[in-house]
């Protein structure tokens, strides 16, 4: 990483990939009462990222056998530091210089940032100034005091990197109002573990679930749109979606999730979001 300001395009073999990027606190466990879909899961984006595989750079540099982690450090005021397991570094980790076909904007980490598909967003260190290959993680403040998930027994889970499968119905959703008759229910689903296999939608408060259609192409670790035609009979009901990813993992209900993790883990809340539809067609958060 001697000179990251050198334009990398052309001088390094590059790839482009469409991936989501999500804050691990999207939403926090307290924020689950948000009014709109954006209140609840607005801290996710999906873009085409272009750059060099970290594996290519590490191969050019040469790795010692004891290399187990790569510590990435930003050039921001806090010199943000996160440790990346070597398996991820040699798999799909990227050093990116472009987003959606244009050079990174300053806010997105110009000139170079780490991009870790499917991992919590904080690890995709911006303004990258240094990669330090080591036998141990840094145990930096951001991977001890922060970005660890406190459990009801007082222990905290550490190195919780992958963002698990999530989905939300964006239409109809909170603060919208619908009329009786034909509607196309639609929303987005994603998983840090690969591709979305299916999204199931309930229109009767969870009694029955139907497979939604997935918009092709269903990409690895990318937002995936789903759609289901539906005719609303005008009766109050609750609609919700749940994502199932290629590992078979099923997006849990908030009740099931918090039964295991309590309400204080802050990060990695991927619970189902139910939308309640009133007789007048008003749509509201089913948890609120």
């Amino acid at each position, binding site marked *: 990483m001697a000179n990251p300001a050198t334009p990398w395009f052309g001088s390094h073999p590059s790839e482009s990939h469409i991936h989501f990027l999500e804050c691990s606190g999207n939403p926090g466990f307290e924020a689950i009462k948000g009014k709109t879909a954006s209140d609840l899961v607005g801290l996710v984006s999906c873009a085409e990222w272009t750059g060099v595989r970290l594996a290519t750079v590490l191969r050019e540099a040469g790795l010692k056998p004891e290399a187990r982690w790569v510590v990435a450090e930003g050039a921001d005021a806090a010199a943000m530091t996160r440790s990346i397991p070597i398996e991820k570094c040699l798999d799909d980790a990227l050093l990116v210089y472009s987003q959606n076909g244009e050079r990174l904007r300053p806010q997105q980490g110009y000139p170079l940032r780490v991009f870790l598909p499917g991992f919590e967003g904080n690890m995709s260190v911006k303004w990258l100034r240094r990669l330090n290959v080591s036998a141990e993680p840094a145990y930096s403040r951001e991977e001890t005091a922060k970005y660890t998930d406190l459990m009801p027994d007082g222990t905290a889970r550490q190195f919780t990197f*992958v963002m698990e499968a999530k989905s939300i119905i964006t239409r109809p959703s909170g603060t919208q109002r619908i009329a009786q008759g034909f509607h196309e229910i639609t929303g987005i689903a994603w998983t840090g573990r690969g591709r979305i296999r299916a999204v199931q939608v309930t229109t009767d408060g969870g009694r029955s679930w139907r497979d939604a259609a997935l918009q092709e192409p269903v990409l690895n670790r990318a937002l995936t749109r789903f759609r289901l035609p539906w005719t609303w009979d005008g009766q109050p009901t609750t609609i919700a979606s749940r994502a199932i990813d290629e590992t078979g993992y099923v997006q849990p209900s908030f009740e099931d999730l918090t039964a*295991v993790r309590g309400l204080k883990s802050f990060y990695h809340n991927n619970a189902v979001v139910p939308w309640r539809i009133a007789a007048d067609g008003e749509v509201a958060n089913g948890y609120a």
Partner: protein
Amino acid sequence: AERFGIGRPATEAEIAAWNIDIDRDGRKLPPGHGSVAHGRAVFEAQCASCHGSRGEGGTGERLAGGQGTLASAKPIKTVGSFWPYAPTLFDYIRRAMPMNAPQSLSDDDVYAVSGYVLHLNGLAPEDAVFDAHSLAAVRMPNRDGFVPDPRPDVKP
């Protein structure tokens, strides 16, 4: 796979300029030392405006107290109650604090103020002096509070 022969080794000078990360065991801690007493002075001058003079009540994060609350319904996570390794305190303060002028403190001042934050948490006596050896020797109360990620953990 193919090697392209791109790039060049980083120079010693380039590495030295950015080589500030400290491991949890403190083996990478730099020379220098600082007393809790001096730390109090640094803290009052450069930290208390955000963190409060006893490490709580300011606009910055709470730095002291909360021990024994982690398993409660209102957990309070601070350096004293939550942080597992004392050397990380040196690492973080040196790289990121004071928030308005990060990386402006001398290593001696960082030792001193780290010591003072430990003192505020009852983890160092009034007259302690910290250096690489003594800071690495502090055993934080939540040292063993971290467990590996067991996910997927919620069955349908």
